[in-house]
């Protein structure tokens, strides 16, 4: 029997489905099928917002649910539990949540085939409405309030003893929408005019000169200039890679882990006459890069290959510059992908640290003497960033750290760290390494 229409098209039920896709099957929230099945665009926006909110505040919401439930729900009732979390999130963070919202949420239990839970959800949410103030002040005393898993919170506190609180707060805020102007095809003044007349408010970035912030955030399809390739979506922190690489005509540059191709495109937009080699390990991700370049009217030779297996793709000619946008924990972009907090494990970070070290060691011989390698991660963890580069310098005698003469980020011994929220950016790490003779 097909799932009933009223169930499939219910935004709260879709949100529960999306939570299950992310938390039970490790899917990225952006790929949720349950959300994409919603036909009404307002329902979709509501469900998406609610799902992001629950993933942002998961451990805090679970703490609240635990206080309010007289006894824990059975494992097979985790759909009811998630319904409770949705209701709590809405009451806590959505100022307009009313009695109608409580009623609608509770009634969803019936659609889940668990009519016995309607009364329970209703009573629990009403109690939260009444006791919100005292429960929330109690929650503030508990580590669950930070809404980070214990290992990650401890690591952020260890790595950033001065700033960890700001990092945690920034991770739990919604990220703004930043665009990058395609200098090859866009007339900036005209584009700004079009964006403004479409009702967007614009602001510039202090450091990334091609960045424009548009608010309110909207789907890319609704942003004038996107389809024709005059704009891309990209955080200003990611746009700084271009400044450090400073590409010049006819330079031979390797972009070793290029997908989804944002930094690749930015290099070509500022200097189309590059001898650029674009790699990514996964074929379907190479396709994504190609689509992005096509949309932007740019061209580069892309190859699906593991950068470390040089026999498969390298012709033996060394590079002037290498961009190593290394695979990482993505702990710098939690504000955009809150599910990262709950899916990532410390052990996975160990594995990715190992891969980063292999990439540094494996790509270094491909660089010309005097050339630079720009090492980038969207991580805020010391072991992937400053520590990683420190260890590389110990292993490698002809590598030197170049001082990054910029005003953004926090100076480290081997690079600069941008923490999430700094001038409204994602968390990124940059190091510039020069090959000495």
């Amino acid at each position: 029997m097909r799932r009933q229409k009223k169930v499939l098209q219910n935004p709260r039920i879709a949100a529960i489905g999306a939570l299950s896709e992310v938390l039970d099957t490790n899917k990225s929230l952006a790929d949720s099928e349950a959300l994409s099945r919603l036909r009404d665009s307002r329902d979709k926006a509501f469900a998406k917002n609610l799902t992001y909110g629950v993933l942002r505040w998961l451990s805090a919401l679970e703490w609240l649910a635990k206080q309010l439930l007289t006894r824990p729900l059975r494992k097979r009732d985790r759909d009811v539990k998630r319904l409770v979390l949705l209701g709590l999130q809405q009451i806590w963070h959505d100022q307009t949540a009313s009695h109608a919202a409580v009623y609608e949420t509770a009634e969803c239990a019936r659609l889940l085939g668990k009519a016995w839970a309607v009364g329970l959800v209703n009573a629990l949410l009403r109690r939260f409405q009444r006791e919100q103030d005292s429960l929330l002040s109690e929650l503030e005393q508990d580590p669950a309030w930070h809404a980070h898993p214990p290992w990650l919170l401890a690591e952020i506190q260890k790595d950033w003893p001065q700033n960890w609180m700001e990092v945690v707060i920034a991770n739990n805020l919604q990220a703004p929408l930043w665009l990058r102007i395609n200098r090859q095809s866009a007339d900036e003044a005209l584009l700004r005019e079009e964006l403004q007349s479409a009702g967007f408010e614009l602001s510039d970035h202090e450091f990334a000169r091609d960045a424009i912030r548009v608010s309110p955030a909207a789907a890319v399809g609704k942003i004038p200039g996107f389809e024709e390739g005059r704009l891309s979506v990209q955080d200003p922190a990611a746009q700084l890679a271009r400044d450090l690489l400073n590409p010049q005509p006819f330079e031979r540059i390797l972009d070793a882990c290029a997908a989804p191709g944002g930094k690749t495109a930015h290099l070509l937009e500022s200097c189309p006459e590059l001898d650029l080699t674009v790699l990514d390990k996964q074929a379907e991700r190479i396709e994504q890069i190609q689509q992005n370049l096509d949309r932007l009217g740019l061209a580069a030779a892309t190859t699906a290959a593991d950068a470390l297996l040089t026999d498969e793709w390298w012709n033996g000619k060394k590079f002037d510059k290498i961009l190593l946008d290394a695979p990482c924990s993505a702990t710098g972009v939690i504000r955009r992908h809150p599910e990262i907090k709950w899916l990532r494990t410390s052990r996975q970070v160990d594995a990715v640290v190992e891969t980063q070290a292999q990439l540094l060691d494996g790509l270094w011989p491909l660089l010309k003497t005097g050339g630079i390698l720009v090492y980038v991660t969207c991580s805020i963890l010391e072991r992937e960033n400053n520590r990683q580069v420190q260890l590389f310098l110990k292993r490698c005698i002809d590598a030197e750290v170049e001082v990054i003469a910029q005003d953004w980020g926090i100076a480290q011994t081997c690079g600069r760290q941008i923490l999430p929220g700094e001038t409204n950016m994602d968390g990124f790490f940059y190091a510039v390494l020069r090959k000495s003779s």
Partner: protein
Amino acid sequence: MAKLDILEFPDPRLKTVASEVKSFDIHLKTLIEDMLETMYSAPGIGLAATQVNVHERLLVLDISEDQSCPRVYVNPEVLSESGEQDCEEGCLSVPGIYARVKRAESVIVKAQDPTGIFFEEQLENLHAVCIQHEIDHLNGRLFVDYLSPLKRNMVRRKLEKQRKVAAQDAEEHRLI
């Protein structure tokens, strides 16, 4: 695990009356896993073996939103039914069509689990609708059979139109 193809109305094979499951072996276990995967990806809340062109008395259900309550019924049989409900039904073998059908509100079902052990269970509300819908499949009956001939013809025409449009889309895609 593998996703299986679902037969679609008016495929005559959907009218087959399924026969009793006799061996509770590895083949049955694989079929159950494949049927669950097929049901989840549809997305459905119930699937009878008949729908995947296996004519044995076997059905799977899961009305949860997060695939947390899969249930398997081998050789299911309704022992008794009570009450009445009127519920909107849709079927994976009749894509895009929903219609209200009158069913018993509560049923007591006897069945075997995947290892052959007998059990009895009372099902209510949506669970009851779903198992009655699936047992109908095993008897070669579809929910559209409960509709008036006029309505059933409308369903048939609507499906034909849907298929035509889909075929045209595919053709256009090929030309591009």
